[in-house]
Structure formats: C-alpha cells, structure tokens
C-alpha cells in the first residue's frame, strides 16, 4: 500500500505541475498541445546544464546538480514556449497546428543537440544525458502513521518543491491581479482589451509560464522515471497532462484529483503485477489501466465540461 502511495505521488505531482502549466495557457485562451514538447525541451536544457557543469561526473554533488537542473529546466521550458507564443499570438497561426509542430520540433532539436553536446564533451554522439536518481527524504515521526505516513516516506526532493510551486501558481491564478486578467483573456479578450490591458502580453506570459512549469515537470520525470535525459522523455506525459486538465475542467483543484487518480492507478497497476507474480509480458496489460480509467471517466464527465469561452480563438483587435 505504501509503495503505491509513494510511487503514485512521485508520478502524479510532476504531471500535475505540467497540467497547471496547461491550465495557465488555456485559461488565457491559447490551446496548448505543445506541453509534451515544452517538458522535453525544458528537461533537455536542465540535463544539458548538469552535463556541461559536471562533464558527466555527478558523484558527490547530486543534490546541488538537481537544483541546477531544476532551475535550467524552468528557464529552458519558458524560453522554448516563446516559440508557441510567437506562432499563436503575433503570427496568428492555428494553435492546434502550432502545438503539433512544436512537439515535432522539440524532439528533433533535443535529439540533435544532445548528440552534438555529447560528441563535444565525451567524443561520442550518444542520445542520452545520465543524471542519476533524485534524492529522497523521510519525515521522522509522521512517517510512522499507517497509510498517511506513506505520504511522508521516501519522498522525492521535488515533491515539496512542486507542492509549493503549485500553491503559488494557484494563488497567482485565482487571487492576483495578473490571474484576474489572465482568466478574463480566456473568456472575453475584447473586454480585457477595452479595459486597457494588453491581451497579447498577458497571453504571451501565460504561455511562457506554461513552458516553465512544463520544464519543471519534465526534469522531475527525467530524475525519477528514467534517471537520465533521452528521447524516452517523450512518452506522452504532456498529453496525459492535457487529459488531466480537461478532466479537471480547467480548474487547478479538480486537476490535482485527476493527476492523483492517474498516479495511483499507475502505481497500483505495477504493484498488482508484482503481487500476482505475473509474467513480465502481463505488465503491458497493467500499463493500460490509467488510460482506460481516464477514458471511462471522461465518458461520464466530458458532457458537462466547459472549456474557456475564447479558447483557441485568434484574437484580432479589429474584429468585434
């Protein structure tokens, strides 16, 4: 049971922070299918920074390097997201198309630069940056409480970081002046414009935040699931995050629920495969659990879903 909670949380939270990124973008009115590309590119920048600083020798400074990676991933994600913002806002491209193109471009660019950097540093053009696994901690005392204690046992370092960032992101979205304007942009950009606020600017920043948060989530996945950066980072987590935020009706609270459900379904599936001592081939069947569950739940909840009113609309000042 404990392991389900520990592993579930470790998967759900990075997914959650990426989904929050998606919420920022979509609540401002910009459809974001590019989360996958953002998280991959962000993680790539973080991993590349670590590799460049340590030349592959992270022993002894794993923790410090983990924070370096976080920082660079956030920046990398935000900068890369500018591309989506540029295409969607001043260039008025179709937002869905832009998202797809940016995902393709992210895969291509990171693969290209990874092999370039590796061949410069190590003389070998491999497609992987080795990172090691993120450190964990256990809160003494509380961790002994049954079930609840599992939430405080073997916690990845990034878990509290994500919780803090998520809380702050909720505050900004729902309480701050910027958040008020951002959500208004997704409902009626004309009202925002008439109120003297620059819609393009708000949306641009929203997409960049979306990139920053995706980068954060991406590097956490790189540190936990794969312990390295490689093309396998593009495993569809960005799309899962989109499913989670649609499922959560573009609100942060319900989206957390969707992500937790997803994380626990996943870790429970793995555990189940272990307990039943199934042949390794059966793990494939277990793996579909979260996706089937999502699809089933979407069947029940999609009809009442209300996307932001101005989502995907290209805002043109001249039109009314």
């Amino acid at each position: 049971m404990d392991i389900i909670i520990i592993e579930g949380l470790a998967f759900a939270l990075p997914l959650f922070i990426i989904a929050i990124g998606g919420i920022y973008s979509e609540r401002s009115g910009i459809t974001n299918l590019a989360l996958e590309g953002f998280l991959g590119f962000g993680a790539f920048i973080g991993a590349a920074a670590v590799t460049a600083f340590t030349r592959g020798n992270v022993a002894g400074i794993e923790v410090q390097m983990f924070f370096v990676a976080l920082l660079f991933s956030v920046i990398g994600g935000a900068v890369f997201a500018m591309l989506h913002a540029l295409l969607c806002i001043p260039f008025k491209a179709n937002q869905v198309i832009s998202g797809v193109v940016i995902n393709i471009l992210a895969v291509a660019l990171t693969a290209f630069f990874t092999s370039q950097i590796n061949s410069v540093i190590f003389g070998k053009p491999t497609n992987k940056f080795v990172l090691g696994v993120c450190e964990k901690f256990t809160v003494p005392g509380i961790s002994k409480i049954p079930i609840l204690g599992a939430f405080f046992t073997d916690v990845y370092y990034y878990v509290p970081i994500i919780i803090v960032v998520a809380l702050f992101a909720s505050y900004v979205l729902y309480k701050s002046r910027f958040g008020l304007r951002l959500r208004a942009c997704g409902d009626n950009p004309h009202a925002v414009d008439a109120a003297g606020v620059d819609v393009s600017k708000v949306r641009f920043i929203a997409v960049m935040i979306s990139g920053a948060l995706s980068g954060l989530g991406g590097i956490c996945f790189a540190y936990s699931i794969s312990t390295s950066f490689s093309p396998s980072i593009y495993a569809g987590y960005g799309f899962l995050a989109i499913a989670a935020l649609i499922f959560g009706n573009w609100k942060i609270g319900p989206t957390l629920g969707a992500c937790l459900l997803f994380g626990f379904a996943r870790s429970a599936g793995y555990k189940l495969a272990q307990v039943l001592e199934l042949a390794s081939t059966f793990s494939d069947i277990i793996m579909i659990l979260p996706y089937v569950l999502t699809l089933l739940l979407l069947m029940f909840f999609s009809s009442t879903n209300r996307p932001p009113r101005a989502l995907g609309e290209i805002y043109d000042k001249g039109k009314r």
Partner: protein
Amino acid sequence: MRKDKNTAGRDKNTTINPFVRGAVTILGNEKHQSISIPLFAILLSLLAGAIVILFLGKNPIDSFISLLQGSGILPKAQYAAKKNMLTDFLSMINSLTPMIFAALAVAVALKTGLFNIGISGQMLVAGFAATVTVGYSNLPMAAALPLVLVVGIVFGGAVGALIGWLKHRFNINEVVSSIMLNYIFQYIISFFINSYYMNPVTRQSRQVSAAARLTLTDVELYGLKMDIPLGFILTIPVAFLVLFLLNKTRLGYELKIVGLNRKAAKYAGIKVGKSMVISMAISGALAGLAGVTLYLGTFASIQPRVLTSVGFDSIAVCLLGNAHPIGILFSSLLITIISKGGNYMSSMVGIPQEIAQVITGLILLFSACGAYIRYRVELAKENIGNGKLRIENNGEGGQK
C-alpha cells in the same frame, strides 16, 4: 498644406523596394497562394537549415545534394553491387507510400474539423490485425494481398469510428481520446506480440509471409536487386478518390460544412454527429492503409511498444500540403526525401543525422506561419494599392 504633407508621407510608403514588391506580386496572387506560400515556407526553412549546416562548418549545397542522392533522385558517386539510383529511388518510394496514406487520413478528418492525432494507433491496429490474420496464414499472394488491404481498411476504420463516436456520444475531445487509445492499443498489441508472436532474436513480431507482403523484396531485375512497393500503385488513385469525395460528392459537401461551421451544418439539416463518425471512419480506414503498407510493406514485422513516427509526421505533411490530396502527394515526397536522404547525408558530409529531422521541423514551423505570411502579403498589397488609389484621387482632385 496638410494634404501635401500627407501625400509625401504616402509616397514614402509606396516606394517599397523592388524585392518586396516582387515577392508581394508573386505571393499575392490568390489563385496560386495555396502553392506559392508553402513553397516560400520551404525555401525559408531550407535557408535556415543551410545556416545551421554552415555553423557546423559544412557545405550546405553538398549536404542538400547528398540528401537527393540518398533518396535516389540524383546519382551517387558509387554504388554497392546490384544497387543503383533506381534501387535507392524505389526504397524511398517504399517509405513514401505509408506517409501518403497517413497524410490523406489526416486531411479527411481535418476537412471535417477534426484532429486525428491517433493515426499511429490506427496504423498499428490495422497492421497488427492484418499480420495475425493474413500475414501468418498460408494464403497465396492473389488472395492475401487484397485481404491485407481489406483487413487494414476495416480495422483502421473501426478505430477511427470509435474515436468519432466517443466525441459524438460523450463529447470527448478527439485529441484526448486518440491519445488514450494510442496508449491502450500500443500496450495491448505489445502484450500479444510478446506473448504469442515474438521472434526472440529480433525482439519483434515474427515476419509475415512473403505472399502477404505489399512490397516485393529482393526482386532481381536488370542485374539489380530491388524492392518493389506494390502499395504505391494505390496512392495516386486513392488521393484522387479522396479529392473526388471531398469536392464532388454529397458526403464530401456535408463533411466540409461540418468542418467549416458546425452550427450551420446542423441548421442545414446535416447530422453532425453522424458526419463526424463517418469522417473519422474514413480517416481511420486511410490510416489502416498506411498501417498495412508500413507493417506489411516497408517492414514485415512490428516492434512492440513502439508507435511509428509516421503517424505524427503525417499531420505535419498534411498541413504542408494544405490538406489538399494533390498537395499531400508532393509534401509527402519532400518530407520522405529529407528523412530518407538524411542517413546518406550524415555519412557523406559528416553532419549528424538528426539535422534532417530538424530541417523537417523547420519546414513545418514555417508552413504553420503560412496564415501570417498571407496576412503580411495582403497588408503589403493594401499598402501598395492604397498608394495608387491615393495618387489617382489626388489626380481627380486636381482636375476639379
């Protein structure tokens, strides 16, 4: 006084440099915009690619030539035994075939306002179904080949229809359901391959029988050993069939209305939900064709747990081809040449193979800006036009 000042300002605007004026004239022709703007985007991205290659210290011209050589458009300096330009070309066509079908699949859905991001999953289901039913049978070629196509169309179409139905019945966004189904099929099929159809050496599914393969392999002809992609024969007729469907049939008319304006479609008495299911079924069927030509053509086996990138690239290829069936024939060719020639370029010029992927990405990026280019061109046209108008008006005023 005031007028003079303004006219002077206007004149400055009208003296646009001849290069811009030329570009505007070429790109501004609305009849040809659907061709000229993608071409412009391609040109821009090749330019950008050339700059990247220059940065790597290599010659971009040589690189681009080697791309063409690698895909059998231009002759290489030397060939291995029983190989020449024709064998390279056929090998490129072999990869091109599934790409065309996949991009057509994207186009049909797109015309109905749906985004079929699940092409890869539909291809996999179709390919797997055809592999286990026909591929592992002893049927003779005359029976096997048509059956492979039919199985592919039926299974691909069924998955597509499912996605359409989920949208129609439960309002599930087709992007989300496609992605979920992609995962589900990927793992289920992986389970079956791992459990029943695994070739332990290659870690892939066992090869399909040669009789069920849509590509004739290692055919000895004129002293050459070549692969002949039979599936390709179908691509051009199918592209025209899709064109006919969209432009000349009642169904196509209905699908397009649904794609352009769902409310108007309902108002006109069209059953929007049914149209979406039909459109996705057709899209899925085309993806099924892509699946069988890939898994029982280009390849003869399926790698478990891997979705082919053809499905995602095809979205971009379709957009590059303006979602027009004939445009898609050309855009597929271009993207396939770049990806197929990438290997050879990498080995000949000594730049990483990934650069081909980057160039593809850039082409797509620039073509996504097509609407913006069109908008700028219109703006520039207006400017030039207004300048003229102004001068004419002034002339009139003078006469009065």
